[in-house]
């Protein structure tokens, strides 16, 4: 299969560090100030008859991924686990898409009741959230290229090859990253990826000199068929536990989740699910069942369970596995979903840009004609908005505005949905740029225009509205159309606050189908189809303007 190389991001890149740090600080601050919702999680869920659980389909198989036969449906062992838990609670299970590393934030925000997405047990998480008993015991698998025989054990990792450190690809923020950092420290170079399959692919292709990958075993089992040039090195190691997470205060919910998992474990339903995805193994018989005072799991304690034969039984039922697809087939199957998500991209853009232009005009007028108590804050606003990344602004709006609403109107349960937050974020971000464009446009109108207008008895406001702004608007239209094209592409960032637009849908579909090239070309084409007419419009506007000026 012909695949597009993926760009690895190096762990020590300063940009990555600063953005992540900012986000983490912001999140920590907000969460610290969050008063946890009352202890009625289970009641609430049963009243509304729905358990809302969060995961990121971009993570792919075998966890949660689009069904290859019908990409608009989700499959994966966690989808089945969620149904199992919901059944136990006597409610329906409802999936909610969120960016993987932001799922706990969605829990804090109250958007979801349960995180169920390959989150491993850590003591930090156990302190902040309600963690369930493990639903799966995973191990880490060391992977190398079939052709590369210089690696036979974990210890080989520590030896440099040709005088340079080994390069190891891992999923950013995963257990594999922690394990490798502890095991090898500075004697290796760790390269972080956003997707597990990207990390494997980079290793298979040897991109940027990466020669090793460390992967959660279930992921490797699921995708092994798609990576013929990779082989396992040494037995799996570094045991860890996938746990479900609830808000700390939702004791009843956590208890019920634990009950449902335990029951499914005992009556063999859990094993059936894992067998379907080919990830049942001997290790599953060993798991920790110690619970703490909150009814959650305490890591580190394991005991052997007698149920389960201890063999891999693949004979029951059909199994689900990775089915790479490509060509027209994948376009036919998944193209529709991409086009639909392009609709979201268009909707985000055409809603936020007019708001951005309107706010921008007000800011420009405040700076040019307003008294100091309007002009100064307007200048600060522009610098503040221009000087901070869009992704941070979106994140703050999504998580901060509900908090502010709660302080301003306590008890009314006002909140802001992801789409509204995305539009607000984009509009605010772009308003700063539009303000500067408008300011430049207004300043380039000759002073005589204002003098002529007020000499005819117009007030300053009327002169601005009828004479100055219409002329400035014609001047600023080309650069603003240009910005509109940029905004089109910036909508991709909205996936951090759970909005699934074209780019996010592409990552989800491409990773689950293994069709990076085909779907990538289609996605690029869709973006082009949206932005090209705007480009043509910009050129035409510029031409008209220069003709008009020549007279």
């Amino acid at each position, binding site marked *: 299969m012909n695949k597009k190389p993926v760009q690895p991001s190096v762990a020590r890149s300063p940009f990555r560090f600063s953005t992540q740090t900012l986000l983490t600080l912001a999140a920590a601050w907000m969460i610290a100030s969050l008063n946890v919702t009352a202890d009625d999680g289970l009641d609430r869920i049963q009243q509304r008859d729905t358990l809302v659980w969060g995961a990121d389909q971009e993570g792919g198989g075998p966890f949660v991924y689009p069904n290859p036969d019908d990409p608009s449906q989700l499959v994966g062992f966690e989808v089945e686990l969620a149904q199992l838990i919901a059944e136990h609670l006597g409610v329906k299970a409802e999936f909610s898409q969120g960016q993987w590393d932001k799922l706990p934030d969605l829990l804090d925000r109250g958007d979801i009741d349960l995180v169920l997405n390959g989150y491993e047990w850590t003591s930090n998480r156990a302190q902040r959230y309600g963690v369930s008993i493990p639903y799966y015991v995973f191990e880490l698998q060391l992977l190398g290229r079939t052709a590369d025989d210089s690696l036979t054990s974990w210890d080989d990792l520590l030896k440099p090859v040709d005088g340079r450190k080994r390069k190891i690809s891992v999923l950013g923020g995963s257990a594999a990253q922690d394990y490798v950092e502890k095991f090898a420290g500075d004697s290796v170079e760790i390269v972080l990826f956003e997707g597990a399959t990207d990390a494997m692919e980079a290793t298979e292709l040897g991109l940027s000199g990466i020669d090793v990958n460390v992967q959660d075993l279930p992921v490797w089992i699921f995708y092994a068929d798609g990576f013929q040039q990779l082989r396992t090195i040494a037995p799996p190691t570094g045991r860890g536990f996938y746990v479900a997470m609830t808000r700390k205060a939702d004791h009843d919910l956590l208890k019920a989740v634990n009950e449902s998992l335990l029951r499914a474990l005992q009556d063999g339903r859990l094993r059936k699910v894992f067998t379907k995805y080919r990830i049942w193994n001997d290790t599953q018989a060993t798991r920790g069942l110690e619970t703490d005072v909150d009814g959650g799991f305490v890591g580190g304690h394991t005991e052997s369970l007698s149920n389960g034969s201890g063999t891999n039984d693949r004979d029951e039922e059909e199994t689900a596995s990775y089915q790479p697809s490509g060509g027209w087939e994948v376009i036919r199957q998944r193209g529709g979903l991409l086009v639909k998500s392009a609709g979201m991209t268009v909707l985000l853009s055409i809603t936020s840009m007019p708001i951005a232009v309107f706010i921008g005009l007000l800011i420009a007028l405040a700076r040019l004609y307003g008294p100091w108590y309007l002009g100064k804050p307007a200048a600060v606003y522009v610098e503040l908005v221009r000087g901070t990344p869009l992704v941070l602004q979106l994140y703050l709006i999504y998580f901060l505005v509900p908090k502010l609403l709660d302080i301003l109107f306590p008890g009314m349960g006002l909140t802001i949905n992801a789409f509204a937050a995305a539009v607000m974020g984009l509009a605010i971000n772009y308003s700063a740029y539009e303000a500067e464009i408008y300011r430049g446009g207004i300043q380039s109108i*000759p002073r005589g*225009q204002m003098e002529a207008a*007020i*000499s*005819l*008895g117009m*007030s300053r406001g009327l002169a601005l509205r009828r004479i100055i702004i219409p002329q400035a608007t014609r001047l600023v239209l080309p650069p603003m159309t240009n910005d509109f094209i940029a905004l089109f592409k910036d909508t991709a960032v909205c996936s951090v606050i759970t909005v699934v637009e074209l780019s996010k849908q592409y990552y989800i579909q491409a990773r689950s189908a293994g069709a990076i090239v085909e779907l990538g070309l289609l996605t690029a084409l869709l973006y082009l189809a949206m932005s090209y007419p705007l480009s043509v419009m910009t050129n035409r506007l510029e031409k008209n303007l220069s003709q008009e000026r020549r007279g």
Partner: protein
Amino acid sequence: MIELTNIVKRYHQQEVLRGVSLRVADGEVCVLLGPSGGGKSTLLRTINGLESFDSGSIRISDIILNAEPGPQRDQALLEIRKRVGMVFQQFNLFPHRSVLENVTEAPIHVLKQPRDAAVQNARRILARVGMGDKENARPGSLSGGQQQRVAIARTLAMNPEAILFDEPTSALDPRTTAEVISVMTDLAASGQRMIVVTHAMSFARTVAHQVHILHAGRIAESGPPEQIFEDPQEPITREFLSEAAKA
């Protein structure tokens, strides 16, 4: 009646107007002459508030304009600007509007005239300045002289008590200058009160009722044109006229 009393204006430390007083009676054409930098344009622009001044006062019929900034001054200025029009050296037509729209803009949006009446009136005025066939043209497609005639029409549409002309022909070539001068002469003949800053000596000589020579922020000499041009009393006036004759 327009009456300026003891107008003083400073730019930084320098006094550009040093106590100027003058009167323009109804139906009178007043021309300000003098060397560049003498303060003619600045003086003209204080009358409708495009320039502030530091002391003195201006009276236009029943409106009094003082130096002190504030809501009272702003209110007086709005009223003055409705009654006193201005024509600029650079025309300053609105380039995004047609000729007709330039003329109807203020009557409709400032005087709140009904659109039909404003359009009808604008057409009559455009015909009067010889621009009747250009009402749909954009200002950018007109010659300088044509633009200035539209600018005069724009001012006339407000039915002003007086019109201030700030070097109306300085940006024009001799042929188009003649067009504009002829329109202005025609206006003067119909009794339109005007204050004109200009270098067009023939206009001052034949049309003005009063001529004032402004030099270094002061009025050096005032009088009817026949006195100023035939029998100047002040050395400054004589020097200015001989310089102007050479140019």
